[in-house]
């Protein structure tokens, strides 16, 4: 199953329309799309929003995930050991308020299990690459932040902000 998600209620029609056309050409592939406030697809099962529990279940059942380049999607896929294809939202198309998803996509493009389509016309190729890589074992991302970062935040909560703030490691 391919799980398509726009990550929130913010519409992302470029992703949903492109994936709907992809689904029309590949009726053999089971699809489910979380579409937010955007246009309804015709060739995929869909929901506007899903609960966190439903989201986790869809991630677990998916072969690959195709998503906007949001950190929630990236982290969820990594924690579940799933391959993910990212299409960043563009501020110029009013898909988001800034281009931070473009920056995120570039920053994460070389990580194992992450495939990037910088534009919608690269999406099909990125999906092919992602599908071909499924089965290669990715290390599961632990569900907690690295110990060193956790320890520094914890120290602030226990001892106050003034002591460790000047530290620059």
């Amino acid at each position: 199953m391919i799980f398509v998600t726009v990550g929130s209620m913010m519409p992302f029609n470029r992703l949903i329309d492109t994936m709907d056309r992809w689904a029309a050409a590949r009726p053999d592939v089971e699809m489910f799309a979380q579409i937010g406030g955007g246009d309804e697809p015709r060739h995929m099962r869909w929901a506007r929003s899903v609960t966190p529990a439903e989201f986790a279940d869809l991630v677990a059942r998916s072969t690959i995930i195709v998503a906007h380049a949001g950190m929630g999607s990236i982290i969820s896929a990594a924690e579940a050991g799933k391959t993910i294809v990212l299409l960043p939202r563009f501020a110029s198309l009013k898909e988001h308020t800034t281009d931070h998803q473009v920056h995120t996509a570039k920053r994460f493009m070389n990580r194992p299990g992450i495939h990037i389509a910088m534009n919608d016309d690269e999406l099909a190729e990125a999906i092919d690459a992602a599908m071909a890589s499924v089965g290669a074992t990715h290390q599961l991302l632990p569900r907690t932040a690295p110990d060193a970062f956790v320890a520094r935040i914890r120290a602030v909560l226990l001892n106050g902000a003034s002591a460790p703030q000047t530290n620059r490691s």
Partner: protein
Amino acid sequence: MKGRVLAIASGGGHWIQMRRLLPAFEGMDVAFVSVSPDYAADVPGHRFYPVRDAHRFDKVSFAVLIGQLAWILLRERPNTVISTGSAPGLVCLALAKYLIRAETVWIDSIANCEQLSSSGLQARRVADVWLTQWPQLQGQKGPYYWGAVL
């Protein structure tokens, strides 16, 4: 005695980043605030408050949010308020600073790797600990880089 904490994060990635910091709160008296009651399931055994997901250009929602956060802060009286964004977290830090003189921690979302979020830039004025999760964004006077949730 520290260790009484209010942790506030918006939905999606903001909340997931806060969830990854749960070990930092172990053994502390922590209340969580987010924009959907669904997230309460991630923090069993802790008090949880859903608030209005407001943007600054939506004046009514913004007013409701301020009222909700003020009530939560006065009820919880945390020593420290910590946020991973976004706008509701910034508002909560500002209220915490001036309403109950709590210490405040801003951890800018890991989604912002080329420039701080707009909320994150404004957090400079109300955060006692002002952090970015990307080393290339740190400055002499902050934001500081102490690591990241990944």
